[in-house]
């Protein structure tokens, strides 16, 4: 049985493990290295590309990738709320400050703020890019078994980093439960974070107890792990093969696409005229 997500805009982290370990779609069967390459590709792509249509094209690709993994659409929409919130809150000021044709005016008690077309444009491009990358990376996370992640982590990171990375992944569920328990207990006694802010001691107590519990939980888990022979490196059970030739072909295609869009951007060639 799962608990509610403790944060209003982050879905239950357990989805990641659940879908990754139980699914068997074509994306689940894809070589994890190839999938990792796709994340890198999408990050480089959105960094190089300025054009909104290309960004939309990547988003469409990302969504197809997601659908191919047979993951529920509802879940990705939940996950999207985070990047949407951040893009909007950070690029909010650009709506008004970016020079250009004024689309609408906001009158805030005598202060007149004009929303410009260019400002809206920037916000949209940033938003589409963000959603595309998030969709690709979450699809990979929700289709890659933990054992493969262990293997990859130890291959691409130094040992200490990989161990902390993997243990953090494991502990995220614990802390999520811990905080939702505390928040539940607080809500059930008519408390709330808003009221808490006014009484900073209680507010601090909530985080303080969360921290102490997390520490003590970590100590117990650490003991349980040491009791079962843990000495600092997590065991790697499944070795990953190299990508298949199809995987290499996909990676090659991605590199080619990056090459073309970079060429376009930096040498100002009009590709759409081809």
């Amino acid at each position, binding site marked *: 049985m799962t608990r509610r997500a*403790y*944060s209003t*805009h*982050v879905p239950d982290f357990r989805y990641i493990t659940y879908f990754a370990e139980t699914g068997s779609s074509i994306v689940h069967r894809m070589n994890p290295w190839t999938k990792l390459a796709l994340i890198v590709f*999408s*990050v480089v792509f959105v*960094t190089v590309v*300025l054009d909104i249509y290309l960004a939309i094209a990547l988003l469409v690709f990302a969504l197809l990738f997601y659908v191919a993994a047979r993951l529920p659409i509802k879940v990705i929409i939940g*996950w999207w709320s*985070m*990047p949407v919130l*951040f*893009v909007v*809150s*950070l*690029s909010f*000021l*650009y709506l008004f*400050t*970016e020079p250009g044709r004024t689309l609408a005016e906001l009158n805030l008690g005598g202060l007149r703020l004009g929303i410009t077309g260019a400002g809206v444009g920037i916000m949209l*491009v*940033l*938003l589409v*890019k*963000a959603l595309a*990358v*998030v969709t690709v*990376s979450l699809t990979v996370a929700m289709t890659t078994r933990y054992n493969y992640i262990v293997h990859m982590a130890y291959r691409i990171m130094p040992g*200490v*980093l990989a*161990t*902390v*990375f993997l*243990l*953090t*992944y494991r*502990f*995220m569920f614990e*802390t999520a439960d811990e*905080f939702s328990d505390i928040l539940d207990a607080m809500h059930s006694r008519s408390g709330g*974070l*808003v009221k808490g*802010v006014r009484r*900073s*001691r209680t*507010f601090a107590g909530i*985080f303080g*107890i*969360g*921290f102490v519990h*997390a*520490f003590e939980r*970590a*100590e117990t*888990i*650490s003991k349980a*792990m040491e009791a079962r022979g*843990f*000495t*600092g490196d997590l065991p790697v059970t499944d070795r990953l093969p190299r990508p298949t030739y199809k995987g290499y072909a996909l990676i090659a295609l991605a590199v080619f696409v990056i090459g073309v869009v970079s060429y376009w951007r930096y040498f100002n060639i009009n590709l759409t005229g081809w």
Partner: protein
Amino acid sequence: MAHIHLEDGAFTPFWLIVWNLIAMLLIGAALMMLKREKVPPSRLTIASMCAAVVFAVFQVEVPTPIGPVHMNFTPLVGILIGPELGAVVVLIVNIFSAAIGHGGWGMVGPNSIVGMVEVTLGYYAFRLLRVRLRRSYFWSGFGATAFALTVSSLLVVFIVGVSEIQGSTLSRTETMSNMLVLAALNIATGIAEGVVTGYVIAFLGRVRPDLLEHHRIPEHDHPRPEPTTEAG
């Protein structure tokens, strides 16, 4: 809550590479120091739990009159586990945040720089206040956190201002003035977080003093009794 909430595609490729390279150098240095120390597995577990807590706290929206903000707790992590392991924690938190769209993948580097500044300043400022100046747990925690977060908020303005937002025609100074509005909010939040951290440290000092053992005031050095009532 100094955290660059920009998604992938916001920075130009040049600056993306610059910031990430700097971050890698800093992480590399932290890892070298850890290797020399030979960290026991239990400390790794505790660092991981810190990372998980910081990650969890990152996602808890605290409603304020100006809009939702989130806490950070990176200075607290620095105080508890030191700057080297703290740097590792910061990197890991940023990687997981990127995976769910809380800041882009390309921002892992720049955000880690910001976070590492926070853990390092948090740790040393706390040491200074607690061990040298002999302030109470509360004031040491408050001072260290407020200081670290103020510096890091300004660092965020600097990083974003220098790097420019792709597609925006605003000049660097204009971008920076945009960002300063956010920095003001961040600094205000940082001071609030300082209060919370101060209480958390005072709380830890009472229930788990062993967690703050490494910041103990040397006893041979003119001991002064801890005030019986912590601030507040």
